[in-house]
C-alpha cells in the first residue's frame, strides 16, 4: 500500500519527526480554570516539564514528576509520567489573543511537542485551554461527584478562589442545560481548605426528562469546560412515584431562616449557622423518595436532623 499524499510531501527530517511523535503517549486529562493535569511518555525523548504558552508568553510551567500507578500499569513501565499545573487564581484577568498551547519539553529544550487532551483534537484542546484561561472562569475549582449516596440526587461542588459564589451548568445529553448555584452546605469541605458553602445538589425528581441520559457539569453554558468527575454518570430511570414534585423541592429550599439573638458572639453564630445548614442538608437527604431497590435501606426512622433541632 502506498504512502498517503501528505506523507510524500514531507521532507526526510519531517518524516523522521513524524515517526518519532507516533511513539508519544499521553496528554492532558484535566483542563479546568485552576488545574491542567495529565501524563506524557516517549520511549526515547525524556520530557521533563510542561509549559502553557500563549504566543511567546509563558503562562504556566510544571515538572513532569508525578507517579501514576495507573499509567505505569498501562505502559508497563515504572516512572514519573504525571504532571499537574496549577493556574494561579490571582493571574491577572487578561484575555490572551494568541491561542494557548500546552507543550512538553526536554530539560535541554532540544525537543518539544504540543500535547492534546486525551481523546480530543488539537483544535478542541486549544479551544478548551482558551476557555480555561478566560477571565470569567479564573479561580474556579470544583468537582462533579455524580449520584449522591442513595442515588436520589446528583451533586458536586464548585467555588471561586476569592470566596465569591460560583454556579455551574448541569448538562444532560440532548437537553437544555440547567444552571445551579453552588451555595449548599457540604460537610467537611472547610477541613480541606474549601468554603463550607460550595455544594450543588439536584434531586432526580426535579429533572425527570434527564432520566437515562448521560449527565455532566461544566463551568460554561456550552458544556465544554467540564468539572472533573471520576466516571461517566447516567441519570437513573425515574418511575412514577419519583416523578417531579416541585412543591416538595420548593419546600426543601424555603425552610424558615434561622434567627439568632443579636447578642450571640460571631464565632458562636458562625458555628450555629454551620450546624443549621448541616441539619438542612440532612433534612433534604432524608426527604428524598425511598429507594426502589429492595437492597437499599429506606430513610432512617429516627431523624438525625431532629437531634440537631433538639440540640439547638
Amino acid at each position, binding site marked *: 500500500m502506498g504512502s498517503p499524499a501528505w506523507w510524500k510531501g514531507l521532507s526526510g527530517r519531517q518524516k523522521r519527526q513524524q515517526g518519532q511523535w507516533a511513539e508519544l503517549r499521553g496528554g492532558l486529562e484535566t483542563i479546568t480554570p485552576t488545574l491542567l493535569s495529565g501524563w506524557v511518555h516517549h520511549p526515547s525523548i525524556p520530557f521533563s516539564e510542561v509549559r502553557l504558552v500563549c504566543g*511567546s508568553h509563558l503562562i504556566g510551567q510544571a515538572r513532569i514528576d508525578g507517579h501514576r500507578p495507573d499509567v505505569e500499569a498501562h505502559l508497563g513501565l515504572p516512572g514519573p509520567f504525571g504532571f499537574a499545573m496549577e493556574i494561579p487564581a490571582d493571574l491577572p484577568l487578561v484575555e490572551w489573543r494568541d491561542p494557548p498551547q500546552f507543550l512538553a519539553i526536554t530539560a535541554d529544550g532540544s525537543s518539544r511537542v504540543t500535547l492534546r487532551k486525551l481523546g480530543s483534537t488539537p483544535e478542541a484542546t486549544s479551544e478548551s485551554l482558551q476557555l480555561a484561561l478566560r477571565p470569567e472562569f479564573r479561580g474556579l475549582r470544583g468537582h462533579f461527584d455524580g449520584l449522591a449516596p442513595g442515588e436520589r440526587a446528583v451533586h458536586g461542588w464548585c467555588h471561586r478562589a476569592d470566596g465569591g459564589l460560583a454556579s455551574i451548568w448541569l448538562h444532560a445529553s440532548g437537553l437544555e442545560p440547567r444552571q445551579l448555584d453552588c451555595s449548599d452546605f457540604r460537610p467537611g469541605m472547610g477541613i480541606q481548605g474549601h468554603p463550607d458553602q460550595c455544594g450543588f445538589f439536584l434531586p432526580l425528581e426535579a429533572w425527570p426528562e434527564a432520566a437515562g441520559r448521560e449527565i455532566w457539569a461544566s463551568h460554561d453554558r456550552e458544556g465544554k469546560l467540564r468539572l472533573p468527575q471520576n466516571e461517566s454518570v447516567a441519570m437513573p430511570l425515574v418511575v412514577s412515584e419519583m416523578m417531579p414534585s416541585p412543591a416538595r423541592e420548593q419546600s426543601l429550599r424555603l425552610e424558615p431562616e434561622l434567627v439568632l439573638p443579636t447578642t450571640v458572639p460571631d464565632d458562636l453564630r458562625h458555628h450555629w449557622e454551620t450546624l443549621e445548614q448541616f441539619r438542612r442538608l440532612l433534612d433534604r437527604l432524608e426527604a428524598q423518595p425511598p429507594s426502589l431497590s429492595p437492597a437499599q435501606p429506606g430513610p432512617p426512622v429516627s431523624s438525625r436532623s431532629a437531634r440537631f433541632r433538639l440540640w439547638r
Partner: protein
Amino acid sequence: MALNLVSLPLIDRPDFEPLLEAGRFGVWSREARALHDQGFCVLELDGSALGGLPEATLLALQPTLAPQVEAWRRGEGGTPRLQDGWQQYPEVLALACQPLILDCLRCLYGREPFPFQTLNFAVGSEQHFHSDAVHFHSYPHGFMCGVWVALEDVLPGSGPLLYYPGSHREPYQSAASLGLDPAQVAAEPHPQRFFEALWRDVVERRGYGQQQFLPRRGQALIWHANLLHGGTPVADRSLSRWSQVTHYYFADCLHTTPLLSFGHDHGGAALRNPFDLLRGGRRFSEAEWQALILT
C-alpha cells in the same frame, strides 16, 4: 516582548539557598543574603562608584525645593518632595539609571530591571510605614523594589528612614485582599490608610523590631517590594535629609496597582503600563499593549 508569568525573583525562590551556595549571585552574594533574610540590603557605594552623582543631584534640586523647605520649616505646607524629577534633572535620571545599581538588581532578581519612578525628598518624609507592594506591584509577585540613596549624610533628628526587617515575608495585600470595593477606595483621598491598621497590627503581633537608616552620602538601601518602611518623625526641623528613592520594575512581567485591584467581579488586578526611564517611553508600546491584552 515575551512575558514570563512563572518564575519568581531569585531572592524569593524556594531554592534560594542552593542558588547562593552555587555562586549564582557572584559579587552580590552578601546583598542577596540580606535581601532574602531581612528584606533590605545596603549598597556600600563610595563616591567614585556613583561618580559624585549624589552631591550633584542635591545641588541641582536645592534651588527648586528651597521655597518648599522654607515653608515647611515655618509649619506651612507639606513635606518638600519632587516626584519624577528625572523629567527635568539629568542628575536624577542618571542616578536612577546608575549601572552599578542596575547590575546589582539584575543579579539579585534574575531579570532585567528598569526604573519607572523617582521621588526626591529634601527633608524627612515622616510617612507612615507601608509596603510599596500595595502601590505598585507585579505579576509574578515580587518583581518590584525601591532603592533609597542618601544625597547627604543623614543625622539623627532629621527623620531617618525606618524599616521592619523580616516584614517582607508577610502576605502581599491589595484592595481585593481587604475586601474593598471601587467605591470605597474612590471615596478615600489616601487609600493607603485602609492598610495602616493592618500593618500596625502585624508589626505588633509578629514582634518586628524597628531599625533606622543613618547612612553616609552615597550609601543606598534596596528594599524588597513588601518590606514595611517609612519615615521617623522629624525632631529637628532645621535639619535636611536629602534623598532620592527610585522604584524599579523588572522585564517580562505584568505590572499592577494593588490599591486599585479588586475581586473578580470588579475586574481583578489593575494593570499598568509603566514608564521605562531607560527607554524614555512606556514599557509596552501602544500596539504591544493592545495586541497583548484586552482587559
